[in-house]
């Protein structure tokens, strides 16, 4: 590996999980050993929580209930808008209500295997352990999960597993779970334990004496930039899929909070692990602003196929059965259409690369419900997938009850994120990172219905327990706005915003974002190679250079200015893209969502290199000009035997 791209620093390790007890006892043992904070002292301690999705909303509400003084920040107008709201399919939990052999151990095993052995066993086991309590909590809040006639909860199956452990609320599970957390949060706001900062975007982290002590944030309505202080800071700001411009994330989803924290010293783990979701509506034009996911649950009843012959442009309904290639069922007879997301996506790319793709630009495959409709009847299909079919019809103008849907993979989720230990604390003491913003539970590939599980596990059950151990040493010495670290951070944010507004070049922020996104999708997307990544690494610094000399950002700093918000986010995406490519290039193996062309089996499956890459790559930021520093956390597999994934 060329030395100029990065240097290797000291290894890191999680020191919080109690390794002297068996894995099934580590979480309760950790809670026992962690210091507690007496209820009377909690009101003297302030915690900033940034983001109000499943992780942030749940954490802020729970910390507020526990008696801490919480300050909750979000960039949207209401906490209910956080992008968790768009999750469709469901949430996993090891309840074994189907009596089909599920257990905590099986959920743990499936998640470690699904993540292609690049996740930390301890964290995944804990996730599986708390999964059942999440369902209990959400039901108590009144989340209207799907039920059977007897009044019991219904389950469905999902990709990467052979049990039915997914709880759902029609195709709007994320929305309903988020509203549960949102309502709990609003209740705490009414009670006065959570202070609200709506339409306020975190733009920097304030670190004092090595500890995270506050944030710099901009009020998006008035444009005022101000500092906010606390004893601990929790980032729950989601993933960074919008590096790719077109993704299934909300337009406003961004990496700024975690990227600024990274630049303040938090290590960034596995940035190249991105998930390309197989069932999205294909791209249809240059002006397109986002991609829409169709829940993976559709693969339960829909059958994926392309014509056997390349360039077959017949109406799909006129292509006879024996001229169709149900390629997932053919290649993976035991999992069929329910193979994990990374595999389903890459096979879609492969058949399209062979020229057998369908739709106007050949970048699509069919997802066909004809057989399921005949077997179950149209009412059953409507009940299960009605809203997804409606959404598809609205966007494409085609009726999926009549014509097979066309789908194509799109960037959907980022498994990488800020490095955290078992307590979900980053490498900056007092900075905790939860939900998609951290890296901890999904390894190199996330299984369906596991993002909601992780967000709520972190927010309701993990962080509120582990953060006490840190806060027990507080309250820390008061930091006032005149502290040099606070002034420096505030002035830095102001200077960057003023600089963006003053360039007055000839290109819009969106044009840079589109260019970056296309480059990343082509060169650091579903398949990466040394050649493609080196090309990306040559080009990204040029894009950055041009952005900072030729972007045109209208408006003023001291007003509502959506152009300025977008420009600041894109500036950070450009820097993050470079680190993603460095990480992807250094990891000369394929694993999960990271597929290196150089590392595949003769059948074209991802080929891991456990001898050299069974570690978490945690990157340290270095000031401009110096290459990032790689810190390795070795991954040990005590309970799940390292094996080549097989879904055949």
């Amino acid at each position: 590996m060329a030395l100029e791209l990065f240097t290797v620093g000291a290894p890191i390790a999680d020191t919080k999980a109690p390794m002297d007890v068996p894995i099934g006892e580590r979480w309760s043992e950790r809670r026992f050993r962690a210091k507690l904070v007496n209820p009377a002292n909690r009101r003297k301690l302030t915690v900033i929580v940034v983001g109000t999705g499943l992780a942030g909303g749940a954490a802020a509400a729970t910390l507020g209930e526990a008696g801490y003084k919480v300050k909750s920040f979000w960039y949207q107008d209401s906490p209910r808008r956080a992008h968790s709201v768009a999750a469709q399919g469901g949430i996993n939990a090891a309840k074994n209500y189907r009596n089909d052999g599920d257990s905590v151990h099986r959920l743990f095993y499936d998640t470690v295997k699904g993540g292609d052995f690049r996740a930390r066993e301890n964290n995944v086991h804990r996730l599986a352990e708390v999964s059942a309590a999440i369902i209990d909590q959400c039901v108590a809040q009144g989340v209207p999960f799907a039920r059977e006639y007897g009044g019991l909860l219904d389950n469905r199956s999902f990709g990467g597993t052979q049990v039915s452990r997914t709880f759902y609320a029609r195709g709007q599970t994320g929305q309903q779970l988020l509203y549960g957390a949102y309502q709990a949060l609003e209740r705490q706001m009414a009670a006065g334990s959570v202070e609200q900062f709506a339409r306020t975007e975190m733009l920097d982290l304030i670190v004092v004496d090595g500890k995270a002590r506050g944030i710099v944030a901009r009020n998006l309505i008035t444009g005022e930039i101000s500092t906010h202080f606390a004893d601990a800071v929790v980032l729950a700001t989601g993933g960074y899929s919008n590096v790719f411009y077109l993704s299934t994330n909300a337009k406003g989803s961004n990496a700024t909070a975690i990227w600024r924290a990274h630049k303040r010293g938090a290590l960034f783990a596995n940035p190249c692990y991105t998930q390309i979701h197989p069932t999205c509506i294909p791209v249809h034009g240059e002006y397109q602003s986002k991609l829409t996911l169709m829940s993976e649950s559709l693969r339960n009843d829909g059958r994926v196929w392309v014509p056997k012959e390349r360039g077959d442009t017949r109406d799909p309904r006129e292509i006879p059965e024996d001229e169709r290639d149900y390629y997932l069922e053919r290649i993976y007879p035991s999992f069929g259409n329910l193979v994990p997301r990374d595999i389903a996506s890459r096979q879609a790319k492969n058949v399209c690369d062979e020229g057998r793709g369908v739709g106007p630009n050949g970048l699509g495959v069919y997802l066909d419900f004809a057989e399921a409709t005949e077997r179950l009847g149209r009412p059953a299909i409507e009940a299960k997938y009605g809203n997804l079919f409606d959404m598809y019809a609205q966007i494409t103008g085609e009726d999926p009850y009549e014509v097979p849907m066309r789908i194509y993979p799109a960037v959907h989720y980022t498994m990488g994120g800020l490095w955290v230990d078992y307590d979900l604390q980053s490498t900056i003491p007092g900075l905790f990172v939860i939900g998609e913003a951290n890296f901890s539970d999904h390894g190199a590939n996330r299984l369906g219905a596991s993002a909601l599980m992780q967000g709520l596990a972190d927010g309701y059950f993990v962080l509120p327990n582990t953060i006490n151990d840190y806060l027990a040493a507080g309250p820390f010495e008061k930091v006032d706005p005149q502290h040099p670290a606070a002034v420096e951070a505030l002035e830095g944010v102001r200077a960057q915003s003023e600089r963006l507004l003053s360039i007055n070049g000839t290109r819009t922020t969106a044009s840079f974002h589109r260019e970056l996104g296309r480059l990343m999708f082509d060169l650091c997307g579903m398949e990466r190679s040394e050649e493609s990544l080196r090309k990306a690494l040559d080009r990204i610094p040029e894009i950055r250079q041009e952005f900072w000399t030729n972007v045109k950002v209208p408006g003023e700093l001291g007003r509502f200015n959506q152009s300025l918000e977008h420009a600041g986010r894109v500036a950070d995406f450009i820097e993050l893209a470079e680190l993603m490519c460095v990480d992807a290039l250094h990891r000369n193996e394929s694993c999960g969502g990271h597929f290196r062309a150089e590392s595949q089996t003769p059948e074209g499956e991802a080929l891991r290199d456990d001898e050299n890459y069974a570690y978490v790559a945690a990157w340290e930021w270095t000031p401009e000009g110096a290459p990032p520093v790689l810190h390795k956390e070795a991954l040990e597999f005590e309970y799940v035997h390292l094996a080549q994934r097989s879904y055949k």
Partner: protein
Amino acid sequence: MNLKLRVWRQRSAAEKGKMVTYQVADVSPDMSFLEMLDVLNEQLILDGEDPVSFDHDCREGICGSCGVMINGRAHGNGLFDSHPQTATCQLHMRSFKDGDTIDVEPWRATAFPLIKDLAVDRSALDRIIQAGGYISAPTGTAPEAHSILVAKKDSDAAFDAATCIGCGACVAACPNASSMLFTSSKVVHLGLMPQGQPERDDRVVNMIHQQDLEGFGGCTNIGECSASCPKGISMENISRLNHDLLGALRAGARPKS
């Protein structure tokens, strides 16, 4: 296609606003309404003009951020027979014709102060939720999920009410700027679940009280709300709310000060 847009421009609540006309060329029928506004904004930025501010986020009809009056209709719902009720982001330009003139205005309601152009402040809706739109279930206190049985018909009806995305179209469409459809959707969602019973009376009384304090108007059963709702929330919820409210008041429930 080529379109003429007349867009409400207002720099802030303190300044006066007006309709401003723009031409947008080469609009593709596959664009969403917001993508068409993106195209206008890129053009405005390059021309050195101030782009139009509007709220948006998920662009798949679920977050509730977007929402504008299109030719006088909230989200454009009701303008097109063939188009199902949606949020603005799910309205596609194939619904319009070449040469159309389209008026684009913000939600207008006393309880939704204007921020800039098409963006308004809907935090009043959050404060209605704060007044009682929840079930008090602190984290960790929950019983085993299957210890609570919910009849499927109740669970399904609760879900239908719970799909409200809080966009505010009901308020914008109502001649009285009433938020009854929004409030009732939460009252009914929680009121249909066994878990929601202990707080049912207080919930409806407090949420209605807060709705009045925020300056929303009263409901006179006009039905523009439901006809404009991107989720098709039924007016039956308002009847159920009124039923709950009467029962609660008769039982002695009164709003918290």
